[in-house]
């Protein structure tokens, strides 16, 4: 399996208070890669680094098999990018923006652009400066999709949009992916949204990549365990113990959050004299929260 995006040991300092440290990201070709992280974790900076908008410090970046920033222009020609904040010229009408944008891309699909415009119910004469947030989001998605890109990089594309527009936008992305073997890199802090569409997930916090794995692994590997008679000291666990907390008053015992859980691991508890009462599946959001919690307080 080849990677559409490969970042290796990338460093980048942003001002004096924030830096990306030793960042390694691998986005498999043809995947929909969800890039999760709280606000300010470095998601947008990572995206800007991978598109050549920022100069990296150390490390290497390859996108669509080409080095960044040396080949940024060629990569951008095959990449549809929806930035976090609207970046189009306010004075343009939608029609003008579509014409302007299309002029720069050889792969521009004018028919698709028109189809999407109609589907998104965008008035060609409307001024961009006067569009609602939802309309602006749809227009930017239209521009990205009509480029016929091999890679879609979407930075918080649905942030602040109402559920209807959000659905329209994500549906358009999925439609596109279903027609072409494109890779989608989508960053968001709306975890539940990515859960439904992504097949890979990366989690970012404080400028570092906390985890990167197939969505299925992520979802199934993180469990909440109810444990009775747990020993005070725990060592040599076959899983990763993310958190350990007292249980509620009724059930007693402790609640463990673990990663890398598999059923045969139940035997471990018998070995240490404890009893495993219950294994609870966590959804992506819960897993995400637990993951971050562990990452931020490694002694927990």
């Amino acid at each position, binding site marked *: 399996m080849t990677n559409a995006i490969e970042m290796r040991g990338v460093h980048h300092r*942003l*001002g004096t208070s924030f830096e990306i440290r030793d960042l390694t990201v691998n986005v498999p070709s043809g995947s929909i890669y969800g890039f999760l992280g709280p606000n300010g974790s470095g998601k947008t900076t990572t995206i*800007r680094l991978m598109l*050549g*908008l*920022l*100069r990296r410090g150390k490390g290497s970046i390859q996108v669509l098999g080409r080095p960044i*920033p040396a080949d*940024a222009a060629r990569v951008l020609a095959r990449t549809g990018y929806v930035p976090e904040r609207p970046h189009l010229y306010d004075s343009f009408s939608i029609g003008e923006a579509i014409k302007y944008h299309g002029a720069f891309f050889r792969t521009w699909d004018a028919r698709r652009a028109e189809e999407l415009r109609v589907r998104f119910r965008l008035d060609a004469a409307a001024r961009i400066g006067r569009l609602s947030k939802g309309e602006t989001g749809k227009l930017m998605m239209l521009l990205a999709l009509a480029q016929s890109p091999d890679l879609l990089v979407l930075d918080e594309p649905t942030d602040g949009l109402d559920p209807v527009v959000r659905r329209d936008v994500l549906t358009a992305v999925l439609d596109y992916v279903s027609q072409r073997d494109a890779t989608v890199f989508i960053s968001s802090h709306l975890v539940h949204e990515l859960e439904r569409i992504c097949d890979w997930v990366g989690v970012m916090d404080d400028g570092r990549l906390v985890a990167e794995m197939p969505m299925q692994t992520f979802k199934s590997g993180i469990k909440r365990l109810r444990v009775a008679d747990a020993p005070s000291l725990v060592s040599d666990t076959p899983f990763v113990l993310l958190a350990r907390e007292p249980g509620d008053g009724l059930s007693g015992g402790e609640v463990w959050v673990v990663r890398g859980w598999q059923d045969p691991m139940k035997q471990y508890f018998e070995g240490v004299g404890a009893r495993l009462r219950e294994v609870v599946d966590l959804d992506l959001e819960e897993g995400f929260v637990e993951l971050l919690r562990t990452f931020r307080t490694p002694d927990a």
Partner: protein
Amino acid sequence: MCEPRIRCVLVRSAAVLSVLLVVLPSGGAAQSADTYRERVQRLEQRLERLTAEQERRAEAMPPVELDTLRVGPVRLLTPIPVQSFVTAVAAQLRDSLRTSLAGDTVLLPPVNLLLRPRGPRTAARPGLDRLEVQGVHQWFYREEESRFQQADIPGPVASGLLDVIRLRTRVMLDSTLSLWLENDIAFDSLTVIQAQTAYLELAIKPWRIVRDCYEGRLDRCRDALALGRQSVITWYTADERRHVVETAREWEPRLGEDPRAQQCAVGGDDHACVAVLEAYPHVLREPLSALTRQSLLRIALQSGGTGAFGRLVRSDTLAVLDALATAAAVPADSLIARWHRAILAARPRGTVLTLGGGWTAFVWVVVLGVAAMRSTRWRIR
């Protein structure tokens, strides 16, 4: 430093203009040459009387208030409060005279000038917001006291005084030379502006004789400068004469009534044209103005160096050109040639874009364009 220079030129021009206004016939009235000379003499006598009266008045002022400064034959009387300022003026005047006349300064006629501040008399020590020069004529210098700067002000005042002295000097010269110069004995150095003015006149006057002079025919320059034969026949072509009369009929009503003017303008009779122009000399004068003629005097004195002014003063019996050549200590033809070269060399820088200037601008365009294109791509903070 430019400001005082401009002011200096303005002051000088005003002085020259005032003399021209006095000398020129008023209201365009037709006068014969004799009437004209009589009128000039009357005005000069009147000016002399006024001057003498003012000098008497100045002398009559209480001596305790005044200090006296001497610059060659020039005596500057000044009230004590502005003594230091007038000392600075005197120093500049001395420099100007030394540069222009060297040792010949002693030949200048004695001139007494009273410089005194005028303005609000309420202050115990009057300011220099107005400085009155009494002597040959009144001359005011006006400047806001708050903007007064010792370093700048004496310059134009000294220039103004030099103009006064120049006007006074004409009594020393032969009346022919004085008339040729229109009573302004331009003994100071030829400035760039004066040379450029002469150039402009030489370049743009429409007469054939001036065009010939411009193109280097020195004999024609001699005539155009009114140093050779002096008549409308020498100076102007028949077409020019007819054209001038035709044009003059529009503003000189007496020409409309003169049948010779009709014959000249309509019939093309050149004899009639000559007759009209001789009868009405104010209609058409010398091809080149007195200002340009004065440039020849300045160049003659510059060429002659030390003693040139003295030789000029002593040559009052010679023809004008010979007197100038004597002052310059070169043959007359050489003097005209030098003048021609100097005036043509003073051509103002034209608007025509120089090759160097154009290329420089082009190079800057390229350099700045390349600099813009090298602007970094890493722009997002």
